[in-house]
């Protein structure tokens, strides 16, 4: 079977990649180990969160599917950080993981031009030059040819599960690992490493004592992630909060020698930002308690997720420490917590398009690149697919800048600096986050995707309608006066909110509250946003100095050898990117600029 594109894997990166490629009119084949596992939420049954919620909305603005999937399946919604400022507010939703997973598969099945096939890819086919990937070989010996291949293997590539002394070859508990591909990639000369992540136990709802926990209800109003949807009306489920205690920590201390992490069986580095409970206890001995969110896994299931206490300790220890926690004394464990270790590809081997430098036509996205999180994976899957499509058409790639999207920050960090632990997005990773608000994702990105041919004309019309509405609201507040000052001036006072103005300016009621809210933020923080824009301009100058991909660093006399090697390895696409490579000297950047300036003049 010959197609334009093959996507390996049906996780969150694979879903976006397969949908985007087929929506861009390329015949696409997704090969996954299990059709039933497409879009599975392997860990937390939730989408979004700080900076991650922004990424979901960026994916939606770019024509991706994640926003829609969570909008259809959310069972609780919250805007996080309401009490805080505009740049760090973000939407987060609990998902009914069964519906999510089913809808993801259904969406793929209904997509025109996309075929699904259950098998395991074990090797890649190269052309005669050995520099271009032209297809894949599966476990059962099937060969599929394609012009581009997107690799999204998640935690499955040579995945290994650890629960105390128990070790098994699996990508997820109960699901076999994908064996062979990692070896094949190493044989081809790619640099692979091992990473580790983990997940907590799931417990039975009816065995928990919620009276001993603090309830955490959702917002009264569910708000859509997708810009294409106006509202969501669905009953909301609650989560609960409880805490570990000294007894819990004692149990872990007493059994730490039985942890595969501390016993040395796991070689992969785990996430600092989402550590297992044993990590927290060992690294923060002064803390007498750690917070646990008890979250429903979905509708019509008793399974509850214990967010915050992932563990790979033996099952009897897990049971002991869970039972030491308030409200969980009688908890019935349905699935045990575990750690998983897997192969990842050093992402500095990729261009910012996510295409492999060494092998044309091979794109890599998601957890395979050393990231952690559904949203990080989905964002990469989408960008890899868009760029695979652009290259098939011979068009310019889509590279998002650090100043225009969290996805831009993510990919730039990965391909420029690499990562040696699972990379999770944080607001602090973005330098210009006042510009990266979740409510402005459509303004930042929709037009770009429309121009590429992925985003619909309806989306563009919606954006233009929104921009018009925002202008009208601003005009209204500019013209209408109160005590001799325009409402814009009043709104700039910190204690003033737009809700207080609505009574005096009832015309505001005729606008979408989302627009009104955005105008409020724009006005309130105008000075800061303007300053940020100046910083962005300064930043962009170096981003716009492009370096040709075939640039010969050896030809340059003035460069230090150390920087030369780094430039040759990373192959930065702009001087800006070059300046972010760790350990590169300022003087070498100057030399680079000089040479590029000369080249440009011919």
């Amino acid at each position: 079977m010959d197609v334009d594109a093959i996507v390996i894997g049906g996780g969150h990166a694979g879903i976006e990649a397969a949908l985007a490629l087929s929506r861009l009119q390329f015949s696409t084949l997704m090969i996954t180990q299990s059709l039933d596992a497409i879009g599975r939420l392997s860990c937390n049954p939730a989408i979004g969160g700080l900076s991650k919620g922004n990424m979901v909305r960026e994916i939606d603005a770019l024509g991706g599917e994640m926003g829609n999937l969570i909008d259809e399946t959310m069972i609780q919604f919250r805007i996080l950080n309401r009490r805080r400022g505009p740049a760090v507010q973000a939407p987060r939703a609990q998902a009914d993981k069964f519906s999510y997973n089913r809808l993801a598969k259904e969406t793929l099945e209904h997509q025109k031009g996309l075929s699904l096939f259950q098998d395991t890819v074990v090797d890649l086919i190269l052309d005669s030059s050995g520099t271009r990937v032209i297809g894949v070989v599966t476990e059962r010996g099937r060969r599929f040819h394609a012009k581009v291949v997107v690799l999204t293997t998640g935690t499955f590539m040579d995945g290994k599960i650890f629960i105390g002394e128990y070790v098994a070859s699996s990508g997820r508990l109960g699901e076999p690992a994908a064996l062979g591909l990692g070896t094949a990639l190493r044989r081809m000369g790619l640099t692979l490493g091992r990473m580790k992540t983990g997940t907590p136990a799931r417990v039975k709802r009816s065995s928990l004592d919620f009276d001993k926990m603090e309830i955490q209800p959702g917002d009264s109003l569910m708000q859509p992630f997708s810009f294409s949807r106006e509202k969501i009306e669905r009953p909301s489920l609650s989560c609960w909060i409880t805490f570990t205690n000294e007894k819990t920590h004692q149990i872990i201390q007493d059994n730490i020698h039985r942890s595969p992490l501390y016993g040395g069986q796991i070689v992969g580095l785990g996430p600092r930002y989402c550590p297992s409970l044993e990590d927290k206890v060992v690294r923060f001995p002064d803390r007498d308690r750690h917070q646990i969110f008890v979250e429903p896994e979905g509708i019509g299931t008793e399974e509850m997720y214990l967010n915050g206490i992932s563990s790979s300790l033996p099952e009897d220890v897990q049971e002991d420490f869970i039972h030491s926690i308030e409200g969980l004394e009688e908890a019935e464990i349905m699935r045990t917590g575990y750690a998983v270790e897997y192969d990842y590809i050093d992402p500095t081997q990729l261009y910012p398009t996510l295409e492999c430098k060494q092998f044309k036509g091979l794109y890599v996205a998601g957890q395979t690149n050393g990231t952690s999180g559904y949203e990080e994976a989905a964002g990469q899957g989408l960008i890899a697919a868009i760029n695979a499509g652009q290259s098939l058409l011979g068009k310019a790639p889509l590279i998002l800048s650090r100043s225009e999207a969290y996805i831009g920050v993510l990919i730039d960090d990965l391909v420029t600096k690499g990562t040696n632990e699972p990379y999770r997005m944080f607001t602090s990773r973005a330098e210009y986050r006042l510009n990266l608000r979740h409510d402005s994702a459509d303004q930042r990105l929709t037009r770009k995707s429309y121009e590429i041919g992925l985003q619909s004309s309806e989306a563009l019309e919606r954006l233009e309608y929104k921009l018009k509405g925002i202008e009208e609201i601003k005009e209204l507040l500019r013209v209408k006066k109160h005590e001799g000052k325009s409402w814009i001036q009043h709104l700039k006072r910190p204690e003033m909110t737009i809700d207080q103005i609505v009574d005096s300016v009832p015309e505001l009621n005729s606008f979408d509250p989302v627009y009104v809210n955005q105008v409020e933020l724009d006005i309130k923080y105008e000075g800061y946003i303007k300053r940020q824009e100046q910083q962005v301009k300064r930043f962009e100058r170096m981003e716009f100095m492009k370096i040709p991909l075939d640039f010969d660093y050896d030809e340059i006399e003035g460069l230090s050898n150390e920087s030369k090697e780094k430039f040759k390895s990373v192959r930065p696409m702009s001087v800006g990117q070059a300046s972010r490579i760790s350990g590169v000297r300022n003087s070498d950047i100057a030399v680079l600029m000089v040479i590029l300036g000369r080249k440009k003049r011919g």
Partner: protein
Amino acid sequence: MKYAYYDTDDPIVALATPWGESALAVIRVSGTASVDMAAPCFSRPDRLLKGDSHTIHYMNFIDPADNMPIDEVTVAIYRAPHGFTGQDSLEIFCHGSLVSIKKILETLKSVGFRDARPGEFTLRAFTQGKLDLTQAEAVQEIVSAKSRQAHSLALHRLSGGLFSHIDMIKRDLLLILSRIELQLDYAEDEVVLDEEIDEISLHKAIRALGELAATYRTGKIFSQGVKIALAGPTNAGKSSLFNLFLKEDRSIVSDIHGTTRDYIESWISIKGIPVRLYDTAGFRASVDVIEEEGIRRSIQLLEDSDLVIYMIGTEDISSLMEEHPEYIYIWNKSDIREGNAPEGSLPLCSLTGEGFSDIEKEIISRLEITNIDNSGEHEIMIDSLRQKELLDRGVISLDSAVEAIESGMPLDVVAPDIQDCIDALGEITGEITSADILDTIFSGFCVGK
């Protein structure tokens, strides 16, 4: 921001001739639209706006704020791709007085030019391909040397004391920022610690940076010297004091004689500070036209001096003291004069030298020189305008952060200002990246989710 260094087209200005008194000085500006930008500073802006490349024009350099002339200049226009940098640029030939050079530089900066960094004109010339291929190798060497020098302002040229002083302030700020970022990185219900922002430390940092920026004057004094004028009526003992200074100082650089009628000047050193000392013509009502002109110049000189030492004669000086409290007043004892020094003046016996060391002490104290230890060595001090500007930027950013906190702005709005200050300090001491912040956060705190 480390990016700033490599901007290659924003408008820059620098003195192209050595910093010192001379017949003529050349000030150079370059950058996109720099000719248009500088035009309002000239009495005939049209000549600049419309002038062709490679033309020279004679006119006044003026202060656009009040249209007052600053100096008579000739100005050469170069338009891209001509001239040394290959960009739109001007070469302004002005009189070589430090006063007018300084005023012209300040005026140009007030309309949007910034100080060029070391080698920046040359860097632009290379970037614009203005140097031929045979020069390429030499060019690269120079470029890397120049920028390395800029970088090592942080590491080598600075005294260790300054580096660690700035680094300490930076660490404090980094800690504050890490705490803010930690709170911002986790939802409000996830991180139990919801701390107040450490405003006291911010104020402390603002003060420390301000004090450091203020040492620029001291640093500059050491590197560029100060101007001290001796004034007072004839026969009050100016020449005796002048000679006393010369005698005390064993490191006289040179003697320069102006028009005898105007003043005598000499380079001396007081406690290690290079001083250009002027003995002015006496103040005396005179009908002699030449002498009158000399007095007029003397008055001008007094205005331009960093410090004036006034030798009291027989006149009543109470009104002068009121008008010029910044002068140092000296009452010279002599055979022909009895009595005590008037209040507010220092006594001196120019014959024996008695009281001279008090005068020296007073000079040092009036120059507001900070941080001089007994050996005369200066330590935590800055001496480059670049450093001062970065420190000023840091102070402005922190002021803005404090203002935002006090007006109840949320932390995510406050953070970029603190980051900007850290970036400015980072430009002085080296580099920091946002990865550093994450490291600080996660080595010091436990996070819940």
